[in-house]
């Protein structure tokens, strides 16, 4: 059964619809990411779950109970804000203790839980520091400890890592995932970094302009993108125009001089989406010419000019000889590696 459930939630600001028809059920202990470009409504959705904004339409339920009717202070959710929103006049320990104080946790137990929470995020010994005397990464950890110490039913994270530099961000990602695994809190992370979403989440909700484009595991969304938007947003991809020919038997999917048995369910003009690392060089297939060849350490990046337009190919640097610039090649791939969808406007 769904633990947290959003049922056709929508939010309008005046005439502008910012989130529309947002339905999602989150299982207990699951790690979900909202992924999408800036302004697509991720924060708005998160704030509706938190209760800082009221949905215009739709329902939000936690363990089957209506959450919208519950005051934000009574929802018991843990939230980490993009700016951390720590209380600057309190020490790290006082910040973490605040939520426990509000719950009237006895002093001794409070001290113990604060100590444990700070230790969990690797900040033992920083109890008496004020936030302004801490680094970005440390502040971020205090914010996380403050949200987790109240044992929230759901942890909401709004781009908590976006203010950190690349190396620290990676460290914190690993740590975040470990902490989440250990204590098993249901977590929703907002991010516009696809790598972050992929490496952390059980499932990703890809959003665009207030609508859900796809919900799926990182692998599903990467390898079976439901729309052109998803395939473009989650890393580099090749889109080739193809056609399905049902006149021949067995029916064929054709793109230039590449062809394969046609998948069921589609007809006529289609778009073939294929990740650059899934394309190989072979004897038959799409004919192309290599325009540039870039060496990137563990892999080669080829930009090709093919029958069906520009194509990108990534090959592992496994020691075998690679085609040179200007060389004519044939591009080929396994049918199970591509995703095929009807071509709009054709």
């Amino acid at each position, binding site marked *: 059964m769904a633990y947290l459930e959003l049922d056709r939630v929508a939010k309008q600001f005046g005439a502008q619809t910012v989130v529309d028809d947002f339905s999602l059920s989150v299982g207990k202990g699951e790690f979900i990411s909202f992924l999408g470009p800036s302004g697509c409504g991720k924060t708005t959705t998160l704030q509706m779950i*938190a209760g800082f904004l009221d949905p215009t339409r739709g329902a939000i339920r936690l363990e089957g109970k209506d959450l919208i009717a519950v005051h934000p202070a009574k929802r018991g959710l843990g*939230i980490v*804000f993009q700016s951390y929103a720590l*209380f600057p*006049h309190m020490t790290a320990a006082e910040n973490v203790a605040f*939520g426990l104080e509000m719950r009237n946790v006895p002093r001794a137990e409070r001290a113990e839980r604060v100590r444990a929470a700070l230790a969990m995020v690797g900040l033992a010994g920083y109890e008496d520091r004020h936030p302004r005397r801490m680094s970005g990464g440390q502040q971020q950890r205090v914010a996380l400890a*403050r949200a987790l110490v109240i044992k929230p039913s759901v942890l909401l994270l709004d781009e908590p890592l976006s203010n950190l530099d690349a190396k620290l961000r990676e460290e914190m990602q690993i740590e975040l995932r470990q902490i989440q695994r250990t204590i098993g809190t249901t977590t929703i992370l907002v991010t516009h970094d696809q790598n972050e979403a992929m490496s952390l989440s059980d499932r990703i909700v890809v959003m665009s302009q207030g609508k859900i484009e796809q919900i799926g595991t990182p692998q599903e969304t990467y390898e079976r993108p439901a729309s052109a938007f998803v395939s473009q947003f989650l890393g580099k991809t090749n889109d080739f125009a193809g056609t399905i020919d049902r006149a021949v038997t067995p029916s064929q999917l054709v793109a230039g001089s590449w062809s394969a048995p046609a998948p069921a369910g589609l007809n006529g003009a289609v778009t073939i989406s294929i990740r650059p690392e899934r394309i190989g060089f072979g004897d038959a297939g799409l004919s192309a010419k290599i325009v540039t060849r870039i060496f990137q350490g563990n892999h080669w990046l080829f930009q090709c000019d093919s029958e069906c337009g520009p194509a990108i190919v990534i090959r592992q640097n496994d020691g075998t000889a690679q085609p040179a610039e200007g060389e004519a090649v044939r591009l080929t791939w396994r049918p199970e590696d591509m995703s095929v969808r009807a071509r709009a406007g054709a």
Partner: protein
Amino acid sequence: MSAVAEERGARAPWALTAPALMLFVGVLLIPLAMTVMLSFHDWGQYKGIEPVFILKNWKEIATDPYYAEMFWRTFRIAILTTLLTAVLGAPEAYILNRMSGRWKSFFLLVILGPLLISVVARTLGWALLFGGNNGLVNKLLMSFGAIRSPIPFMFTETGMVVALAHVMMPFMVLSVWAALQRLDPQIENAAMSLGAGPVTIIRRIIMPQIMPGVLSGAIIVFSLSASAFATPAIIGGRRLKVAATLAYDEFLNTLNWPLGAAVATLLLVALVLIVVGSNALIERRYAEVFR
């Protein structure tokens, strides 16, 4: 770098600040020093000012209880004015800050607008409303029979505090407003998500963070009120004197310049001590919020 260039580099800051420094010395330090000197001179009804060095004026101020009472009144009025502006101004700034765009700019204008009107005009307004039997409000209330005699306002400390608070309010609101701008916009949501109710949020989260703003506003209001002249002169006249109006009277009516200078010097020294002292206290107490 050559030695010559280095020398020039060391002299440049002095050369660049010289004009401002000269102005500072010329219009502030020299007159100030002369006032202090003046306070040690002698004065007589018939002989006028005698440039000698005596402690007569200072002795008079120290021994005559009239002066003690007057200084005490001055600071009592300043403290009450400061309290009144803080109690009204801080919530005012907070409410203002929570308003949405258009209303915010409108009410900010309403609050700051009075700064454009002369203090004299604003204080005379109070006099017109509450001045004796002819004051507009008094007339109205008496005609309704709500009060039998005019509300005592003119020549009272209450009246002076009210009028001063009105004049000083923008400074307090602006100062608290500046502190509010430094708050994280999500800070209230953060506290709310941890289970804090509205009263707790204001008391535990907002108040401690805007306190430095309230206190620096209080320093401004206190020092301006303690040295205010126009408002006490109009409301208190010559019946209810404060330090500034007394010094004025000594200079222009009694013509006892040395005594006036002593009063002015004492007011200045007391103010400087209070302001510097409380500022140091505030900075120490709120080091974490100021950083």
